[in-house]
């Protein structure tokens, strides 16, 4: 096995038997060791340490070395020689426990890549530019468009005040009108945008608009910015061409932005392959899972500062990064966006508002702390549900078909009032939800991860759920770009943990009224015939890899996937949590009265043995 060319920069051509990979998150730096055992790659040890962009270090490599040092202690392998990673592995010299063959990393430390995008029409080129930036793993801090309702001087002020790391300009189809594109270039030039880091370097700006406007844009912005011109992201109205702009974003991120963050220059030198932004790396893995198994998938990576959502529906991949929805740095923003009642609706006890607000703010200012008591854990799980829910709403609004495009319609479509730009997210056709990130990967009981995702996403019909075992998807994403076999082996064996299937009828009713009847046949032939009423939640053990069959007979206004009241038989797959049957209604509605809500939560949490003593 040799390293495939990463993009030429690694220069490694040694056999890859021992790999160390890190992900520098905004809160924690995670390191994993991957070793070739026989013919298969396995993830063997892991370590973590706080990310050290803070004083006194202000050097991301310190956290990386600390996380790798933990692996050294646990594995007995000598990886570090002072502050240098020993490469390659010295097995050929008779020293099997020294060195690794390659070190690779992903990063979202430093607040990630913050971009501003511009277009001509907000929900056409503006949105295409947004998708291009989000797809490259960026956080889009604003979308400026000629028709965004802001006055010219307001646009200029906005560009000046936001201080993005990079700007992506789009607008106009090739050969179309240029006026608005040039106008926007004038505004950007007039704003004289300054980057967040560094006084002397010029702000990277990508122009991916009307190709006829390129000479004018070069004239206006060539001197004032580090201008890069690439193919139009919307060459014709009916087509998006996001690839070239995304590649340029990655290149400029490495060349300009990461160089400015504390210690990244050293990190880039340490790594044997280009450092990928974490959302880009997780996206690679999510897209691979979906395409390999031909699934419709929603993936989520809930981190400290951001929540990244990925989806593949009908083979179309989309990614959004919800900046400021996260579990540490941004936890207070989840409270601000969701509102206190929405968070409290998941908490199975009463707590006064002041105490809760202070606790959330304390987590914001000391983001590396963990819940020590059960009530603190339950509060964090409540906040996570809201962060997941809000991030999916954001994703749903952006994962759409192209807007402004004339749709071809046949006679069969005449009675369907479809508009262009309809969201691609269809929960009834969703096959798999994959969760990653600290709160999901490190939940003490796997059922907690499953219920957090079920409550936030409200899957309908039959949906499989999985979780990243110890949060290693980013590592595997970057690894897949240099050694696909290693990434695949570890992904299948050590990373993906199937939680089980959730069956949830769509429809609502009164508490206690009949909802579904079912016959559940387990792999050993045992059959259970039972019924559930509206408001009930039930969990059956069904191990990973095992399949059961279930014949569902919904009541007349409940739909399990074949239509209201229509029976359905299907095969369902198990997981570490089991088979969850959720008759709490879709949309999910919790009792509004406080005591009734707490009682309902306690009943549900007890039904699935969610917490110790529940």
């Amino acid at each position, binding site marked *: 096995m040799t390293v495939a060319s990463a993009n030429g920069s690694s220069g490694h051509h040694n056999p890859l038997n021992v790999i160390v990979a890190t992900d520098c998150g905004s809160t924690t730096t995670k390191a994993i060791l991957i070793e070739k055992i026989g013919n298969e790659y396995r993830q063997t040890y892991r370590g973590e340490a706080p990310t*050290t962009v803070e004083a006194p270090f202000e050097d991301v490599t310190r956290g990386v070395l600390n996380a790798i040092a933990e692996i050294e202690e646990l594995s007995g392998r000598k990886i570090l020689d002072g502050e240098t990673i020993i490469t390659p592995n010295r097995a050929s010299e008779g020293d099997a426990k020294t060195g690794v063959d390659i070190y690779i990393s992903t990063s979202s430390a430093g607040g990630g890549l913050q971009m501003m995008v511009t277009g001509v029409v907000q929900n056409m080129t503006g949105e295409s530019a947004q998708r291009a930036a989000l797809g490259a793993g960026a956080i889009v801090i604003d979308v400026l468009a000629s028709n965004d309702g802001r006055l010219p001087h307001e646009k200029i002020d906005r560009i000046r005040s936001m201080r993005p790391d990079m700007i992506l300009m789009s607008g106009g189809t090739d050969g179309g009108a240029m006026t608005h594109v040039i106008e926007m270039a004038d505004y950007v030039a007039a704003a004289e945008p300054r980057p967040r880091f560094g006084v002397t370097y010029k702000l990277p700006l990508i122009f991916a608009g009307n190709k006829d406007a390129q000479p004018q844009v070069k004239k206006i912005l060539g001197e004032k910015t580090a201008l890069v011109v690439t193919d139009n992201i919307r060459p014709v109205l009916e087509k998006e061409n996001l690839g070239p702009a995304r590649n340029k974003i990655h290149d400029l991120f490495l060349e300009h932005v990461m160089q400015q963050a504390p210690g990244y220059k050293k990190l880039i030198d340490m790594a044997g392959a280009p450092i990928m932004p974490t959302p880009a790396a997780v996206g690679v893995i999510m897209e691979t899972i979906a395409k390999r198994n031909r699934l419709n998938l929603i993936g989520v990576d809930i981190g400290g500062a951001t929540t990244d959502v990925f989806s593949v529906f009908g083979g179309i991949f989309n990614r959004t990064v919800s900046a*400021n929805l996260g579990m540490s*740095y*941004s936890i207070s923003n989840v409270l601000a966006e969701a509102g206190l009642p929405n968070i409290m609706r998941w908490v199975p006890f009463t707590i006064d508002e002041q105490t809760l607000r202070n606790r959330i703010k*304390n987590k914001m200012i*000391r983001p590396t702390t*963990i819940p020590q008591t059960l009530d603190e854990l339950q509060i964090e799980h409540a906040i996570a549900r809201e962060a997941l829910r809000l991030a999916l709403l954001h994703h749903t609004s952006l994962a759409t078909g192209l807007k402004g495009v004339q749709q071809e319609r046949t006679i069969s479509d005449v009675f369907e009032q479809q508009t262009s730009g309809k969201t691609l997210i269809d929960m009834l056709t969703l096959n798999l939800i994959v969760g990653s990130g600290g709160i999901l990967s490190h939940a003490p009981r796997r059922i907690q991860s499953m219920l957090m995702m079920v409550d936030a996403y409200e899957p309908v019909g039959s949906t499989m759920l999985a979780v990243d075992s110890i949060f290693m998807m980013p590592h595997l994403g970057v690894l897949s770009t240099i050694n696909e076999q290693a990434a695949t082996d570890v992904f299948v064996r050590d990373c993906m943990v199937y939680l089980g299937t959730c069956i949830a009828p769509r429809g609502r009713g009164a508490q206690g009224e009949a909802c579904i009847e079912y016959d559940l046949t387990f792999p050993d032939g045992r059959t259970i015939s039972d019924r559930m009423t509206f408001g009930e939640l039930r969990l059956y053990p069904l191990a990973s890899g095992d399949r059961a069959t279930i014949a569902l007979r919904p009541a007349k206004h409940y739909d399990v996937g074949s239509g209201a009241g229509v029976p359905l038989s299907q095969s369902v797959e198990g997981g570490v949590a089991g088979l969850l049957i959720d008759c709490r209604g879709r949309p999910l509605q919790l009792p509004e009265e406080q005591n009734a809500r707490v009682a309902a939560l306690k009943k549900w949490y007890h039904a699935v043995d969610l917490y110790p003593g529940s």
Partner: protein
Amino acid sequence: MAHSYTPGLTVTDRTTVRRRRVLPLPGKVLVQVGHRVRSEQPVARAELPGKVYPVNLANQLSIAPDEIKEYLVKREGDTVERDEILAENKPFIKWFKTEIRSPVSGTIESISPVTGQVLLREPPKVLELSAYVDGVIVEVIPEQGVVVEADCSLVQGIFGIGGEARGEIVVAVSGHDEPLTPQHLTSAMKGKVVIGGSFLPAETMARAKELGVTGLVVGGIHDKDLRALLGYDLGVAITGGERVGFTMILTEGFGTIPMAMKTFKLLSSHAGRQASISGATQIRAGVIRPEIIIPQSGKTSGEAPLRPPHEGIQIGDPVRIIRDPLFGRIGEVSALPPDLTKIPTESDVRVLEVKFPDGSRTVIPRTNIEVIEGAWS
């Protein structure tokens, strides 16, 4: 866990700090290496480009964009006064004459024959960057700024709001655990940095604003009072630009939490001295914590060196618990068990044992404490 790293806040009577003072855009540095500077002294100056005003001449004159040059009275780079004519048409009948006047005084930045727009820019604004702390210039970064070094006492807070300020330290309370009430504030505290104890209620904030207090340093506040003060719910801890009338620094966190005795004693010992303070907080990359810097005159750095930070946590280190249920308690590390331990949430985590001043002990996840960094002694 030899390399274990726990972030901590520094509270020390003697240290040397270096503060990088950098302009937001290239400008002129006004001092040289070796110069002794005062905190309020300007060390660099830049001209912030003025505001931009677009004027669409083509629309207003009802002409094609590429024709505007024929109608312009002024050219690119020319200066204009407010109401001065920028462009005009030349009709046969004088009554139909249209004159486009400048909405601002400034210069003509650009003229676009594609859009028909003229961009006017107001005169630049002079931005002066102060030294912030009393000290010596140890580095000049050409066109950008300087590095100032100061021998000082340093207290890092955990969170703050408001920008840089300077004032005399006044201790308003008698103990580290006493809340700062409106009655503690007097008109003599105008322009000063007031040290409180465990809690700052909303009424005290209002009184401080009324009196013109420069800074407030306390153990904790309630989030709801912060929200009322700012007028919005703070989503992420990136602050420093607030204009609420004073700079506020929390040393412990949110809630009623007595200020660490070490911090209170240190600040009290400097009552009457001038301090430079900043509430700017950024809990992300290039982290910024609020701080109180009190210059030390006649003392040299290195008398009580800071422990090298990469040594990691050790038995005997003073620590603050930073998570419920014992949030805000201060003690010292009494044991560092190496094995993973199951805590009530059922998570297996690395823990340490903390001994409190009353002799009681508790086991805490390592990540839920912070070392009170300072001099070794």
